[in-house]
């Protein structure tokens, strides 16, 4: 099977080369047969990569420890679901998985557009296949995944225990899906630049892909945070580690793109800027992959030098060089058709939103690469930790939250004093109310109260938007309120789904503010029968329990939880020993409530003295972070829902954009 896999990879490499050559030739000569042949070759590339993935999965599931990858990332006692997850648990497998998703997406794009975009498609194929060629080249010549060992070990060294967690089985694929789907808008942008067909078509064709990419990046980041929270046992979910930064940077630029693209559709402005954002997002996904594999930046995840760094760097330079070159070549044709009328307008709010998001991406980038830069410039490595990112990104985030409230309701072109009063008096009131409410509830921190007020402000604007739209429908069309609300959303899923996403963002901000500013942390060594206090909780340690199976040996502390003398529950934080790797890990115990999370870690257990060290965190409002994440996912699903009006607009490509439902909503 592994020979088949290797063969399939070589074949895929050759086919990708063929697809690039024929598509390019066909496009230049305007010979459709060549283009079609290139498309078919691209399908075949996907087939071959699929065979290679199946071969690696087969080797993993049949526990063929003679294959180096299988021996390094699995073991005979590893449960099947984690054995499958081992496909992306290691470098070689993850690169293969990457190539697999990319060629899969490329196939979907080809099928979607087989009757459409005749001029753009050859270049889309060229771009996507060039990216595929890069990954296939790595897999064929640099890090072959099917490499065999000189001997067959009796046992594999197992998947890293920290990765043996259900969040971790879905977090990397989600992030990869997000990374890789950013390649599709990029490919269309390149095609638009290459052909000079710079109209709205490429943007409309890739709108869902951009959303999909953003969707998976969001989900991937949330899952990563959830994983860190449950597994790493330091009481938090986000540490601004380079690996996390690599995942959040394209999210920032993709968020900026999703907003600025509306301005291009409505006002024909920001054409160059949109191109830049698409290029930037894609480049950041490659940069992220580079970061995590090159060892250039030392991270807690620490991926050490793997020899792949230079290849990624070269590819990154190629991507940026070619795309910026094309952009400059077409610059005269990308002139904006409108200008900014006023700073008090929706255009201005969206622009500001874009700069803040790009500013966030830039600050994160700067902080991440700073050690390398300082070493170049001053000869000393200087790092900045989480305090830097919190200091810089915190205020920017607050500004962004403010704009989330302003952007959707301020008038286009120029807002009059009257319209400002009409649109913002209710939200301002609700913002003020929220601030007062949280202050009264005992959240005494100015920074946090500002965040809570802004959250109230944004929620105020969104609720009044829904209210006004529903009332208008009720008045004009005599619908019941439920009917009016659901049709309002159904007629314009993009707009109202977007509002639901914003609600998610607001809730995430609540969770972040609550858990960062009001966190309580306690640690203490306890004998059985001792207790400790943390916030409103009293925890009583009663004893230790041991457990063991073939894969894991564990020690769990029994901790009884009381609030005001009232018994609530028993938590069992554990220390686990994964036998294969002989590595101890921590299993935290969490009791989440809407008010706060009680998070208990068994720090250490000293058998002779019977002392157990507990580390206890109380994280206020943290549940809202996950609820907000779910809301955001729901909202994105609404935005991505099929929309007949939009399809009509795409069919009439080139005709000015019409935002359906706008009349009713305003």
């Amino acid at each position, binding site marked *: 099977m592994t020979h088949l896999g290797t063969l399939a990879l070589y074949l895929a490499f050759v086919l990708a080369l063929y697809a690039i050559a024929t598509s390019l030739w066909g496009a230049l000569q305007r010979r459709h047969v060549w283009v079609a042949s290139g498309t078919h070759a691209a399908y075949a590339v996907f087939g071959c990569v699929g065979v290679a993935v199946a071969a690696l999965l087969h080797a993993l599931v049949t526990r063929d420890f003679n294959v180096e990858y299988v021996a390094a990332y699995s073991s005979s006692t590893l449960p099947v679901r984690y054995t499958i997850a081992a496909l992306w648990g290691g470098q070689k497998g993850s690169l293969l998985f990457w190539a697999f998703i990319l060629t899969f997406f490329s196939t979907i794009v080809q099928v979607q557009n087989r009757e459409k975009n005749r001029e753009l498609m050859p270049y889309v194929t060229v771009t996507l296949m060039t990216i595929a060629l890069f990954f296939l080249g790595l897999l064929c010549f640099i890090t072959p995944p099917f490499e065999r060992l000189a001997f067959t070990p009796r046992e594999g060294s197992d998947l890293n225990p920290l990765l043996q967690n259900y969040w971790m089985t879905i977090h990397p694929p989600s992030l990869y899906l997000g990374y890789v789907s950013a390649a599709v808008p990029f490919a269309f942008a390149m095609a638009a630049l290459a052909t000079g067909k710079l109209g709205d078509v490429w943007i409309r064709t890739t709108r869902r892909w951009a959303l999909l990419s953003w969707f998976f990046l969001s989900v991937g980041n949330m899952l990563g945070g959830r994983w860190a929270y449950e597994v790493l046992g330091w009481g938090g979910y986000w540490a601004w580690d380079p690996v996390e930064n690599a995942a959040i940077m394209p999210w920032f630029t993709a968020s900026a793109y999703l907003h600025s693209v509306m301005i291009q559709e409505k006002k024909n402005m920001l054409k160059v800027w949109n191109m830049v954002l698409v290029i930037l997002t894609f480049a950041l996904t490659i940069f992220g992959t580079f970061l995590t594999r090159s060892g250039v930046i*030392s991270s807690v*995840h620490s991926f050490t030098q793997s020899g792949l760094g230079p290849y990624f760097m070269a590819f990154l330079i190629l991507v940026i060089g070619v795309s910026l070159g094309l952009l400059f070549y077409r610059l005269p044709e990308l002139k904006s058709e409108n200008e*900014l009328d006023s700073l008090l307008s929706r255009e201005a709010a969206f622009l500001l939103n874009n*700069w803040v998001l790009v*500013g966030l991406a830039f600050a994160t980038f700067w902080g991440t690469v700073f050690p390398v830069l300082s070493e170049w410039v001053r000869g*000393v490595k200087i790092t*900045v930790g989480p305090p*830097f990112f919190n200091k810089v990104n915190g205020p920017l985030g607050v500004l962004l939250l403010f704009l989330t409230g302003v952007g959707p309701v301020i008038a286009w072109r120029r807002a009059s004093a009257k319209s400002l009063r009409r649109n913002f008096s209710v939200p301002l009131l609700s913002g003020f109310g929220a601030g007062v409410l949280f202050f009264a509830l005992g959240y005494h921190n100015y920074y946090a109260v500002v965040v809570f007020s802004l959250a109230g402000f944004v929620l105020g604007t969104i609720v009044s938007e829904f209210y006004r739209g529903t009332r208008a429908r009720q008045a004009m069309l005599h619908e019941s309120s439920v009917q009016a609300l659901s049709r309002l959303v159904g007629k314009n899923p993009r707009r109202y789904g977007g509002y639901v996403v914003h609600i998610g963002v607001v809730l995430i901000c609540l969770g972040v503010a609550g858990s960062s500013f009001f966190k309580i942390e306690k640690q203490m*060594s306890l004998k059985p029968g001792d207790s400790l206090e943390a916030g409103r909780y009293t925890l009583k340690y009663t004893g230790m329990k041991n457990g063991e199976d073939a894969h894991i040996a564990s020690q769990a502390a029994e901790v009884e939880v009381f609030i005001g003398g009232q018994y609530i529950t028993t938590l069992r934080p554990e220390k686990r020993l994964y036998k294969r790797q*002989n590595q101890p890990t921590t299993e935290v115990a969490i009791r989440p409530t809407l008010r706060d999370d009680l998070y208990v870690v068994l720090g250490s257990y000293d058998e002779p003295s019977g002392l157990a060290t507990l580390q206890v965190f109380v994280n206020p409002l943290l549940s809202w972070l996950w609820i907000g994440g779910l809301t955001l996912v729901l909202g994105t699903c609404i935005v991505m829902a099929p929309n007949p009006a939009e399809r009509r607009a795409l069919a009439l490509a080139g005709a000015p954009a019409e935002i359906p439902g706008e009349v009713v909503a305003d």
Partner: protein
Amino acid sequence: MRGKSKFFIGVLLIVGAVGYLIYTGIRETSTYYLTLEEFLPKREALANEGVRIAGRVQAGSVRWDPKDLRLSFVLGPFKEGVGDQTAGVPVHYQGILPDMFAEGRDVIVEGRYNAGSALSAKTIMTSCPSKYEPEKSGQPSAVSRQQNKEK
């Protein structure tokens, strides 16, 4: 032109704000990041500055008091058989031990060096093996290789 100039004022404001935040952020939060070998000759100059030092926990040096959660050990150089093997910096720490902390492990210690004595650590990070590439020993995170050797 009016639209343009407003546009540029906006850009300048944002760029200025981001630049200012980054500048002050770096000034206030930056930490020297050194390997132990680099740190040893400079340690007196760097006394009382925030530092982050990568090294290896020297065998036989770990003292752990589970009651008060006090840890002390000697942070030695990475590379075996290179340079002075006895050189190292004593480290004091109070808190919970990271799971992977053990003698012979590669760790990153963040804290302050007290002139002439020891490093008081605020955090100890063990290189967490994401296992993207575990093969090279002598580098942080070559953990799995070491375990194989231990077996």
